[in-house]
């Protein structure tokens, strides 16, 4: 049954086969996507026609590699900027949230806590349309009442940032809260006792203790933002993020350039994930 108990041979072998099949199921689509990025063919399909780096570096005219594909490069840059701002904003606000719910007491705390959890159970599509509607309502209001046109309220870069921020902050709050729960408050008292003022206590003790969690939360926020599709779909303006851009290409037929982008994404996110893991491990040491 478990590793400390004797197990029958069929149980043990059957279980192993199941796990192997599961991991094949898990990795097959990713592996095949990566492999076909290097296939010397104009379709992302077998048969294998030889190794090529054309889909990365070719400069046209028949094959345009990703590093020369202006539209895709632009969307990658948009996604980077979006993810950067979302990660920054949500980490700052999420940290405030963690401190608020872990350290402060106030009326309606329970209510606010449930409200904070709500974005986890609201489908991303709904978040997208409700923020679209509200920003539109606000925009119309400002235009009708004061005659000013606020471009921030129209679909576009900042609305995407706000839309993603609205639910990623919940995740950050939960990650940082989990770490703050483990914080031993006598450390703060000890620092005060050794002559630190409140500000120094936060900088040298509390934030330093939270640093791994903050970095981890920031990495998670970055990735969540980078790959978000559902919420972004309704808020995106003229600068499409990478997932939106890829979606349009995949829907309308694909070239191995998408495999090349996927390959880069898989390598990139895996290294970010490993980096995150490394931080966590460093912390638990």
């Amino acid at each position, binding site marked *: 049954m478990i590793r400390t108990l004797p197990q029958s041979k069929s149980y043990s072998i059957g279980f192993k086969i199941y796990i192997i099949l599961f991991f094949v199921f898990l990795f097959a689509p990713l592996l095949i996507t990566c492999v076909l990025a290097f296939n010397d063919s104009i379709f992302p399909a077998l048969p294998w026609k030889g190794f090529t780096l054309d889909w990365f570096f070719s400069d046209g005219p028949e094959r345009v590699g990703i590093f020369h594909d202006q539209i895709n490069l632009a969307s990658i840059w948009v996604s980077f900027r979006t993810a950067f701002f979302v990660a920054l904003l949500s980490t700052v606000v999420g940290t*405030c949230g963690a401190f608020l719910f872990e350290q402060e007491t106030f009326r309606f705390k329970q209510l606010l806590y449930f409200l904070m959890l709500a974005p986890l159970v609201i489908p991303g599509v*709904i978040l997208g349309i409700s923020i679209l509607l509200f920003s539109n309502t606000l925009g119309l209001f400002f235009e009708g009442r004061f005659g000013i046109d606020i471009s921030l309220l129209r679909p576009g870069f900042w609305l995407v940032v706000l839309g993603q921020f609205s639910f990623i902050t919940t995740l950050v709050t939960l990650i940082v809260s989990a770490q703050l729960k483990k914080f031993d408050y006598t450390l703060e008292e000890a620092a005060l006792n050794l002559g630190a003022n409140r500000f120094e206590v936060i900088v040298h003790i509390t934030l330093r203790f939270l640093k791994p969690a903050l970095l981890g939360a920031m990495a998670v926020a970055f990735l969540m933002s980078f790959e978000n599709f559902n919420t972004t779909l309704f808020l995106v303006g003229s600068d499409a993020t990478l997932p939106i851009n890829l979606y349009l290409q*995949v829907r309308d037929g694909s070239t191995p350039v998408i495999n090349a982008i996927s390959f880069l994404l898989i390598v990139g996110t895996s290294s970010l994930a490993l980096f995150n893991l490394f931080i966590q491990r460093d912390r638990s040491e």
Partner: protein
Amino acid sequence: MKTLAEAKSKLPLFIFLTPILLWLILLIVLPHLDLLRMSFRIENDYGDMVWSVNNYLEFFREPIYWLTFTRTALYAIIVTFLTLCISLPVAFYITKVAPPKFKGFLSLLLLMPFWVSELVRIYGWMILLRESGVVNHFLLRWGVLRQPVEMLYNDVAMTMGLVYTSMLFMVVPLLSVLDSLDDSLIEAAFDLGSSMITIVWKIIIPHAMPGIASGSIVVFMLSLGNYLTPNLMGGKNSLWFTEQIYNQFIASFNWNQGSAFGFLLLIISSLIIFVGLKLTKQKLSGVIQ
């Protein structure tokens, strides 16, 4: 009781509270109230906006709408159940059966694919399953098939895609909850003469219930609200409810009808989560650790 913590000023409270209130009110509460308001507005014959429940009536009048709605909810439940059935043995294997030295490695391996964008994962499946895809290529070569078969764009492919996409959110809570299950409980049950099935039903499942509930809620919610997978892997005729919402917003530009649909989706998802929590006797705050 006047301790140091309470003697200190209210300043930190306001510093922490202000951004949280701004976030929750401006980006969560007000937008959803606006969604509710918009769903009760229609344009009358003179081109003016008036209050009406017509958008909701429209939903019940058109079978395509409520059929899609029911279908979406049912499929989301099926996907959740399948994901649970597939993930539970895997989580059990990694935490309890695999040699301890592989535990970390296997969990890492398990999480790896989910760091990659959903779109890339779906794209991988498309390359595998379509008519000119890799699976067809091998089946033809091995002589299993004589004609290539379109394996994409049907409900089975879509269900599999949804299971694949949301698996992580089931596996992670299951891993953590099974990790906290003391091996000696299983050993004790074994020692007291239980069969494997009894152990699964009486020890493992009850202990894993918080993880099962939290995983199921998230998977259900993500499947219900998914747009990419049904759109790219399912049939081409808009049979997922989020696609109806998208069509109302972007194609027909009927935001009021779209709002009504959006609100209905929100209600059904909250309702099913609520019922699920009641059935499994869990609390939302407990489920989200």
